[in-house]
């Protein structure tokens, strides 16, 4: 509910603000451009992940100090602690680094992110940065149009930096103009009350903008324009640090348990650091003064002093928290426990089934059928049918007409939930069986393993098929949509026929029933390819759509062939004696061709 009204409320408040103040509009536009620059930067660096970046990460997080240093360096280079957090989470999930190393990177990222303040304070406000922004944008966008992945990535990085600088420029301009209309410094509140209020404002601003960077830039520009007092600027910076945690928490809501643990660590770090900073604010101010004097920062250069403060208080946070990292890891691991996995588990495989060869084979066979049932449901849903419709007597053609729009199924997620767990359990179970069993049972298990692979292959082809199926089944080109409807119908009919064969009252002739299915599959494939050729030749579909159709009919054939092979294999591993005789009657290729030529 809160989520639903949050965005419209922000829109209304902003729109009202734009209406009454053009300066506010300029500042907001600056923030928007800045955030867009960050997005572009992230996109640019993403082009370099999966290779060099990940390799470096693996080698540079060997110890706590290394991971800390890595966090500082990478965040300084990327200018985005959230990107570093995301990459860290992905490495944690992949098991390449431990939670302690991940926490080290996050701590380091907290320090690295303070370089953003330096960038703006020391560099951004002294020079007319928009002068750099423009060429960066031009070169960046030109590079974005390049096909090479590396050049494209560099393009996004350049454009990102360009937008960052441009955003800073707009924010600065906005605040300068704002200064003439309202004197924000009149609202400066001294003492702890002001400290807490501005910390709150800092948290709020960071949550709204989803970026501590943007808040800091805002603080520094406001400070440079003397809109806020120095102390209040410090409080805002503390708030920004705490606020970024909320961003991480929101981000981790959809992350796995490792991501949640890392967000937890992030939160603890920032809360503790923020608490220390508020508690010892006067001491911090003194330290900042000493350091500033030492490095030659003017007494009234509050913007640079804020950058010093930001760095020092994060540094203190790291020094205080480092001894407790291991304790934190233990606490996080016990607090954020791996939840009961939502992944569907195997029903028939257990240790007792391993005792005897026959029971083991039967358990695997039953589990394979369980897997098949789940797979059929996924395939049926992907083509817009329910499993009960497939198993019923309802007219599939009629159903198809009434249901042109296919509800989108997340095949990948369904695979993870309903297939992967069972498939892995089957493979693990088969690998446990003893080798001294009779040859017969070992062969059965070998075939069952292959049958399982057939199911997985069928699901993968379904995933590939789905992409165009969703797009083209509603296409304005009736010929294209018609062909995709045919693909759906074809597959639905096959699923129903396979179910019929499976539940055939006479189990002894199941393999023989597959002969006719194989003939139909071959014929349907040939017919469809001829139809596609004709559509392309007559110009009824553009060649691009035609090739999509050709690819998708290949996926369809792949799904069908895998399902048929699955059935054949499954029945081989059952009723051994009778299948031997049954197989003698299975038609060979020549005999099948003969029937097809007669029917044509």
């Amino acid at each position: 509910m809160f989520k639903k009204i949050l965005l419209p409320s922000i829109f209304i408040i902003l729109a009202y603000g734009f209406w009454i103040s053009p300066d506010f509009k300029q500042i907001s536009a600056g923030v928007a451009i800045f955030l867009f620059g960050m997005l572009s930067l992230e996109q640019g660096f993403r082009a370099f992940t999966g290779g060099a970046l990940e390799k470096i990460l693996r080698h540079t997080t060997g110890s706590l100090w290394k991971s800390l240093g890595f966090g500082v360096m990478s965040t300084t280079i990327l200018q985005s602690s959230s990107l570093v957090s995301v990459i860290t989470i992905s490495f944690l999930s992949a098991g390449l680094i431990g939670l302690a190393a991940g926490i080290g990177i996050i701590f380091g990222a907290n320090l690295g992110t303070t370089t953003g303040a330096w960038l703006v304070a020391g560099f951004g406000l002294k020079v007319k940065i928009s002068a750099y922004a423009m060429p960066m944008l031009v070169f960046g966008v030109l590079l974005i149009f390049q096909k090479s992945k590396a050049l494209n990535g560099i393009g996004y990085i350049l454009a990102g930096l360009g937008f960052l600088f441009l955003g800073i420029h707009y924010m600065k301009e906005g605040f300068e103009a704002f200064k003439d209309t309202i004197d924000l410094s009149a609202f400066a509140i001294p003492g702890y009350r002001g400290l807490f209020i501005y910390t709150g404002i800092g948290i709020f601003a960071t949550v709204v903008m989803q970026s501590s960077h943007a808040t800091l830039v805002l603080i520094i520009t406001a400070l440079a324009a003397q809109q806020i007092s120095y102390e209040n600027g410090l409080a805002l910076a503390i708030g920004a640090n705490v606020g970024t945690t909320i961003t991480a928490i929101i981000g981790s809501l959809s992350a796995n348990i490792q991501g949640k643990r890392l967000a937890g660590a992030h939160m603890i770090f920032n809360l503790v650091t923020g608490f220390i900073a508020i508690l010892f604010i006067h001491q911090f101010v003194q330290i900042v003064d000493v350091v500033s004097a030492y490095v030659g920062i003017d007494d009234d250069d509050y913007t640079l002093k804020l950058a010093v403060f930001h760095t020092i208080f994060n540094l203190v946070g790291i020094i205080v928290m480092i001894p407790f990292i291991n304790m934190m890891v233990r606490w996080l691991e016990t607090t954020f426990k791996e939840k009961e996995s939502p992944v569907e588990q195997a029903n028939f495989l257990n240790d007792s089934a391993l005792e005897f060869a026959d029971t083991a084979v039967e358990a695997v066979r039953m589990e394979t059928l369980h897997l098949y049932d789940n797979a059929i449901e996924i395939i049926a849903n992907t083509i817009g049918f329910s499993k009960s419709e497939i198993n019923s007597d309802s007219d599939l053609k009629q159903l198809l007409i009434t249901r042109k729009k296919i509800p989108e199924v997340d095949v990948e997620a369904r695979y993870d939930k309903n297939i992967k767990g069972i498939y892995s359990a089957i493979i693990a179970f088969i690998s446990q069986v003893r080798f001294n069993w009779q040859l017969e049972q070992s062969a059965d298990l070998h075939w069952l393993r292959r049958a399982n692979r057939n199911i997985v292959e069928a699901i993968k082809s379904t995933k590939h098929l789905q992409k165009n199926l969703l797009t083209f089944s509603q296409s304005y080109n009736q010929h294209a949509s018609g062909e995709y409807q045919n693909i759906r119908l074809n597959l639905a009919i096959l699923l129903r026929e396979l179910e019929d064969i499976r539940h055939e009252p006479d189990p002894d002739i199941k393999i023989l029933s597959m002969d006719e299915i194989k003939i139909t599959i071959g014929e349907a494939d040939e017919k469809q390819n001829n139809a596609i050729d004709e559509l392309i030749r007559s110009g009824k579909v553009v060649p691009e759509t035609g090739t999509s159709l050709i690819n998708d009919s290949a996926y369809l054939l792949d799904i069908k062939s895998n399902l048929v092979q699955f059935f054949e294999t499954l029945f081989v591993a059952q009723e051994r004696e009778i299948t031997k005789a049954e197989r003698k009657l299975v038609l060979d290729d020549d005999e099948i061709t003969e029937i097809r030529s007669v029917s044509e």
Partner: protein
Amino acid sequence: MKQKKLLEKLKAFFDSDARERNKQKSDIKDILKKLKKKERNLKEKFDAEDDVDKRNRIQQKIDVIYAQRKKGIKLIKEQ
């Protein structure tokens, strides 16, 4: 006569190949019966069906079963 039959039975008992052949012969016969029954059912379905596509499919199934039965009969004769 009785002795001769008994000897034949004894020979068959010790001749595992022949035993195997006989077993397969009877299995194939069994399957042929079932196929015949299925073919009959399909023919009834064919007569009751109005949809052309569905009739074609049923006909194809009947053709395949016919070819399988033919193959089975040939195999029995060869043995």
